[in-house]
């Protein structure tokens, strides 16, 4: 079997490429140093000119359309808005939500006794938020879900509650997004007094 042998003269190739390579390196160095000095100057005068955020000391301000981890809306008084209707649990494509409903004496008689989200499974699709008829679960701008154990990625109701005021940007965003602006935020929050 005839084999065609090609001898490659690597030394001469390197010689030929040398000037180009040196130029590319210099170009890169120029860009890096330009940024370095510009940022240094910005830091000295207190006007940062770069996109880099000094995480974790600093946090990025995310746009309202950003989908971070889903959280539960906490109303004034520390109670959740959720009524444990189970639609998010049903909509969730990865089955990461687990709810056990309970009953209270409040006008809204139903509440989640247990509301767990397995953040290790959650894929931030936002379908729970879209399914929710109460605007009770929303995608927040939080992304820090790391934990040292599997149990640590299971978030319980008390960990998931976020005051409604902290979520106002996202809430107005989803009302726009899902064309819900005409709908009152909580259709069943009416007085349910008895006849007597």
């Amino acid at each position, binding site marked *: 079997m005839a084999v065609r042998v090609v001898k490659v003269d690597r030394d001469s190739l390197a010689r030929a490429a040398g000037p180009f390579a040196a130029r590319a390196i210099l170009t890169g160095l120029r860009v890096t140093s330009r940024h370095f000095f510009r940022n240094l100057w910005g830091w000295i005068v207190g006007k940062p000119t770069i996109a880099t955020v000094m995480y974790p000391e600093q946090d990025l301000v995310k746009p309202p359309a950003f989908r971070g981890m889903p959280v539960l809306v906490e109303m004034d008084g520390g109670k959740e808005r959720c009524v444990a209707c189970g639609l998010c649990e049903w909509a969730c494509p990865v089955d990461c939500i687990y709810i056990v409903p309970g009953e209270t004496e409040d006008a809204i008689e139903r509440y989640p006794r247990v509301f767990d989200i397995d953040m290790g499974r959650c894929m931030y699709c936002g379908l729970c938020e879209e399914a929710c008829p109460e605007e009770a679960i929303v995608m927040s701008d939080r992304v820090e879900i790391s934990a040292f154990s599997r149990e640590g990625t299971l978030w319980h109701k008390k960990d998931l509650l976020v005051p409604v005021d902290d979520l106002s940007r996202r809430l107005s965003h989803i009302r726009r997004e899902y064309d819900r602006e005409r709908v009152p935020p909580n259709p069943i929050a009416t007085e349910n007094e008895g*006849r007597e």
Partner: protein
Amino acid sequence: MPEGPNRTLKNPVTVTIDGRQIVGEAGANLLQLALDNGVAIPHYCYHPKLSIDGSCRMCQVKIERAPKLAIACNTPITDGMVVDTQAEEVAEARRGVMELLLLNHPLDCPICDQAGECYLQDYSFGYGRQESRTTSPRRKGVKRHPIGPRVLFDEERCILCRRCVRFTAEISETEELRVFGIGDHSHIGTVPGRPLDNPYSINTADVCPVGALLSKDFHHKRRVWFLEETESVCSSCSNGCNIKIGVFRNEIQRLLPRRNDDVNETWMCDAGRLRYAFAHDETRIRHASLGGREIASNGASAAAATADALAEAANRLRAAIDAHGAKSVGVIASGGLTNEECFRLAALVRDRMGTPNVDVAVPMGDSDDFLIRPDKTANARGARDMGLAPGEGGLDVAGMISGAAAGAVKALWVIGSGDLEATTEAEALQAALANVETLILQDTNRSSLTAHAAVVVPGLVWAEKDGTFTNHAGRVQRIRKALVPPAGSMADGEIFARLDALLQGQAPASVAFDARATLGEIASKVAGYAGVSFGSVGSHGAKPEAETPAAESASAASPPAGAA
């Protein structure tokens, strides 16, 4: 060629529904005929097992040569009738009815247990407007009112179809529920001092097409769309009401009646419906134990423990038989065993142990002339049919208990102690337990016997097994496995097969229990069960003695489309 069921009709007439020719009995109900033939006509107040009310107006259809739309539920069919269910005026009438029904209906689907199986939700989606035109406030009414000990009433959700009123008037015949007030002030209620408290009260929650009447037991428990429903038979008495077992994450959430016109129509009693917690509660026996000590806790080791316990049980039975003769051993079975298990057990007792002392403990209780039977066990008749009755010179349950107390019966093997406890007086039972040398218990739940048992083998509850029950009338009905049994537990049939091998001195490896094959054996060997198989029993059961082929009776009993 006109379509229609393959039944001989006395006076067949042909009606045309949406261009389809359908043959029915003259004077039959137009709505039911349509539903039976797969024509969907929305309806609230009509229920196949209740009288016609005509109050909801949802089933209006256009009938040729009729002056205006007519309600299908109250229209007897006549020859040549031409019905249009899809006309624009029918759609408009439905939209109108839906709008009026929704005027006062609260928008609380997220907290309503009926959501997911609610006629109002379905029809609102299918036939209603998507927008509300009203600006006036909705009527207020009582919420979460305990209208009876087992039923909650939400007045705001009620659409006044009066199904529940007719149920208490016609089926339970207790007449607790009435309509009070007139016009817009009408509401369902009870007379003071007479709450909705009858043995069938939760059926009102079943017939309620909306979430106005709700079962307290299921209230805020689980969304219905998460339930996996398995067709089965109620285990609480020998009537054998057909049910659906609603399961979520391997836990029974509720039992619902399933239509079977030959057994329970569409009803079941409250006692049977609410008796399922024993499958999960803290008294459940999940591990084998020897001398009152659990021998393993979980997983594969639990299975090994069960096997060890069975070996010990076999040794003790063999020792008692060798030392004192076969008559010193007594077997008390439960009516909760399936026919297949009873058949295996009967063969084991008769052929392997050779004792005539075998009987079924059948607790007796209240009964009525509707669905509740006095014998509170599902399969007492089947157990007797399979031969679980005292043999020649054998002792019955009372005889074995007194024999154990007197010392004549040295070893007792009790399968399901709950039934035995309910049939035997406590002192007599304690005397027997104190004196009997060996008590082997094959059981699902802890009882007063558990502490006395030398060997405890975990058994399965009815919802964890496949098989058949024979009800009081001899109807063979299928039960299906709805739950995964606790780790390490064995099907009762497998326990019998293993004991059979162990008592012969063989290794009990690889003796699986196949209910289907066992039923085949029963069909060929047990009198009165010829031709019975899972296929012939189907989902609605069959009477082996009946001359009609089982398949036909099953199809005749199958519920028509849209029946609640």
